[in-house]
Every structure is written in structure tokens, then in C-alpha cells.
């Protein structure tokens, strides 16, 4: 604080700074609110999706049991052999209040399905049902993955934004205000000093003028009487200064 020279110029600069900080604070607050709204949306859909996922997954697992009953142990065959992913995820980007959110989209590579003839001699239809059920679950999970990454990114962004809002509110703005306070106090002080100085100078000038007049009068007297009263003058003057200063100062304080 003290390193800022208390000048009019700096006062102007800091006034501008304060305005900017308050503007920024307002904007960030808006952003935080926007993020919060989104964040709440995401949180809600995550909670919903996760709970419906539990039921969907349970029915998918049960379809597996049904398929196993009908087709025997086909599971070990699924994991054998070479395979190429038919489903991949594309990573897109969504934008919420300037925060980039990763979004996954299901992407079919067009590769041919492996083991299409699973359960050929029995249970094939049941295995088909398993495929379908798990595809549904998978799609839901991809959606959930987007939600979850967005949620985490938003969470992070929200934390940062809140931190900034708080920093502006509690640190930056008070500090600028402090500086402005200091500057205006210093400036006032300077003004008062100037005033006193001026008063002093004025007083002195009046004194001098009086003195001069006196001197002139004396000189005139002397000229008339031809005497030398110069030695007595200094002492008189000293007393006068203090008296005048006190009175002036009091008047000034009111101002």
C-alpha cells in the first residue's frame, strides 16, 4: 500500500481499477451462477441415470442368465479370437459459460460383428437379446460418461470461479479501496499542510505588512523623533505566530 505514491494520478488509476474489479466480480458472479445451474442439471441427470442404470443393468445381466440357460456356456467363446471394436466413442466438446466440456458420442465403426452365429444350435435368439440389452446399457453408459466428465470439469471450473469471485470480493476490492482511502487521506493531509503553509505565509505577510506599516509609522515617528525601536520587534512576532496558528488550525479541522 505504501509503495503507491499518493498522487492524483494514482487515485485516478485506482479508481479505474476498482471499477474494473467490480465489473469483473459481477461478471464472474453471473458465470458462477450459470455454471451452478448447469451443474445442478448435470448432478440431477447423473443421479437419475445412475439409478436407472442399476435396473437396466440388472435386466441385462438377467438376459445373460436366460441365454446361458438356453445356449449353454457360450461366454468363454465370446472372449476368444481376434476382434475389432464395433463401437467406439467420439470425443466432442460442449461449451457452457466459457467452460469446455468433453462430450462422448457413440460411434459405430462399421466393423462386422464377431460371433454372429453364437447359439446357432440353440439359444441364438436369447443371445441376440443379450446383445440388445447390453447395447442399451452401453449407450446409457456413454451418456453417463459425458455427464460425469462434464460434471467433474464443471465442478473444477465452478471451484475456480468461486475462488475468483471470493478473491475479488474479499481481497482485491478491499485492497483497492484501501489504497484509494490511503491516497485520499494523504491528499487531504497534503492539502491541509498546504493550507496551513499558505495561512502561515499569509499571516507572515500581514505581519510583515503591519510591521512595515509600523516601521513606516515608527520611521515616520523617528523621522519625526529620530529614535531606534528595532530590537523589540522579534519577540512580539513569536508570540503572535503561535496564537494565529492555533486559531487557524481549529477552523481548518471543521473543514
Amino acid at each position, binding site marked *: 500500500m505504501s509503495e503507491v505514491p499518493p498522487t492524483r494520478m494514482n487515485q485516478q488509476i485506482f479508481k479505474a481499477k476498482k471499477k474494473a474489479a467490480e465489473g469483473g466480480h459481477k461478471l464472474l458472479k453471473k458465470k458462477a451462477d450459470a455454471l*451452478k445451474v448447469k*451443474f*445442478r442439471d448435470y*448432478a*440431477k441427470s*447423473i*443421479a437419475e441415470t*445412475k*439409478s436407472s*442404470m*442399476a435396473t437396466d*443393468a*440388472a435386466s*441385462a*445381466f438377467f438376459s*445373460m*442368465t436366460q441365454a446361458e440357460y438356453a445356449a449353454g456356456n457360450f*461366454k468363454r467363446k*465370446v*472372449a476368444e*479370437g*481376434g*476382434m*475389432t*471394436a*464395433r*463401437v*467406439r*466413442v*467420439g*470425443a466432442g466438446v460442449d461449451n457452457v459459460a466459457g467452460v469446455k466440456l*468433453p462430450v*462422448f458420442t457413440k*460411434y459405430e*465403426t462399421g*466393423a462386422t*460383428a*464377431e*460371433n454372429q452365429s453364437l447359439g446357432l444350435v440353440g439359444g441364438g435368439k436369447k*443371445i441376440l437379446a*443379450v*446383445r440388445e*440389452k*447390453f*447395447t442399451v*446399457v*452401453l449407450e446409457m*453408459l*456413454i451418456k*453417463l*460418461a459425458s455427464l*460425469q*466428465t462434464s*460434471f*467433474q*470439469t464443471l*465442478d473444477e471450473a465452478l471451484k475456480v470461479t468461486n475462488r475468483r469471485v471470493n478473491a475479488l470480493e474479499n481481497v482485491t476490492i478491499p485492497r483497492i479501496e484501501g489504497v484509494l482511502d490511503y491516497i485520499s487521506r494523504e491528499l487531504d493531509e497534503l492539502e491541509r499542510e498546504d493550507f496551513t503553509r499558505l495561512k502561515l505565509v499569509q499571516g507572515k505577510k500581514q505581519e510583515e505588512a503591519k510591521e512595515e506599516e509600523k516601521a513606516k509609522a515608527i520611521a515616520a515617528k523617528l523621522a519625526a523623533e529620530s529614535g531606534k525601536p528595532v530590537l523589540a520587534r522579534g519577540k512580539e512576532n513569536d508570540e503572535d505566530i503561535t496564537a494565529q496558528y492555533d486559531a487557524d488550525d481549529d477552523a481548518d479541522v471543521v473543514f
Partner: protein
Amino acid sequence: MEVGKLIAVIGDEDTVTGFLLAGVGHRTADGSNFLIVKQDTKLQQVEEAFQNFSVRDDVGIILINQHVANDIRHILKDYHETIPTVLEIPSKEHPYDPEQDYIMQRVNMFLGGGM
């Protein structure tokens, strides 16, 4: 490299089989994008699989059974990347418990706390 990222799966036989049937499986000479966790599968294998998937840049999502995730919680705790995303999913034998899911904890805190 191909367009789009893979979905990796770590889980019990039913989970992995199901998602393989749905078409996520990818096996090349370098290895596959799934791990079947059986009763005799060592924890170390699971850890290695997870660490392997999480640094591969062709993996976008890692699906992991919640009960398996609990076994490697110590690693998951220190995992903070957004991509690949780790999704905890239910398994046949262990119904989904939202209490244990980090994301759900956060969600519930947020919704419940009414921030």
C-alpha cells in the same frame, strides 16, 4: 489411428461378455481392451490393467465393476484425469451401491446440501 476412442472394460465374466457382445471388444497383437476378473485373478493384474488402460490414448472410457473398483480404490483415488473417464458400473452379483461411488457422493452432497 482410427477415429474415435475405445471403451475399455474391467469386470467379471458376465459384464465383459455382455459388453463384448455389444461390440466394444478390440484385440490386436498388442493386447486387448478388456480384462475378465475372476476369483483367482490377482489384484496386481487388475491394477496393471487399469494403469495400462488409463494411459492409453486410444481409450476414452473405462468401465469397471464397482466391486472391482473397490479393490483398487487406492489407485482410483489418485486418478484425476478427465479422459479416459472411469465409470463404475454394477455387476451381476453386487448390486450397485451409490454410496461407494465417488461421483455419486459428490452429486448427493451437491443436491442434498442445496449449495
